[in-house]
């Protein structure tokens, strides 16, 4: 099976690949958002509890 044949997805490339792209963006976006949310909470906790920049 050639690469171009694979990429053409039997003529459904314009539906199959965007579907996979959207799902990939959602997965990667979730990983980044979860990590950012944890980092934000750490920074907030540090500020609230008056720990300054000493830890981290």
């Amino acid at each position: 099976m050639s690469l171009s044949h694979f990429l053409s997805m039997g003529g459904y490339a314009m539906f199959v690949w965007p579907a996979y792209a959207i799902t990939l963006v959602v997965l990667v976006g979730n990983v980044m958002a979860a990590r950012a949310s944890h980092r934000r909470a750490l920074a907030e906790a540090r500020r609230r509890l008056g720990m300054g920049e000493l830890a981290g």
Partner: protein
Amino acid sequence: MWTWLHKFASPPHFYRLAGLLAPWFGWSAFILIVGALYGGLVLAPPDYQQGDAFRIIYVHAPSAWMSLFIYVVMASSAAIGLIWRIKLAHAVAASCAPVGASFTFAALATGALWGQPMWGTWWVWDARLTSELILLFLYLGYIALRSSIDDLQRADRASAVLAIVGVVNVPIIHYSVVWWNTLHQPATVTKMAAPSISTSMLIPLLVMILGFTLCFVALLLVRVRGEVLRRERSAGWIREVMA
């Protein structure tokens, strides 16, 4: 058992354990998803009716599964938080919402991309699609309600009620293809008899669903760590953890 449960739910213990477990779940999910991608896009043969368009199932069905599974986790932990006043349960519920909303969006978007070539339309107001759209609004309503209340404890309780009421939508979505005559095809995998899909097509789908679920566990652990910090009022253990 209760002392163990109490220890597990204590913020410092959970924070450390979650930090330890999250990478394991995350990398297992990554390996499973990559493997399922290969199985679904390369190894599985094209469908005899739908050709290669059927391959959208490997991202559509796992996303739809996540949209429902995460909602059930969210509503259950909201109920536990409400009944037994456990902060950690509220933290879990709050962490579910953005993840669940994003996968509901993915399920709707990939479904539209599947509907256009198969049904000739991106969208139709049938029972399955409409109830899934309502699920998205439930998630968004939950997030909006939380962010509109400044006091964290009141936000926990009010949003928990919304999450619990909304759970009636979950069986409606699941059985919508049975109860109503819809354009959406009926269940492929969760039939009591043998699933109506061949093994080489089914295995990548099951692996993908498992991969997505483990990915959700990893995301949840990371997010709940943040929520635990937001609810913490004493500096002691946080100082210890961050040192």
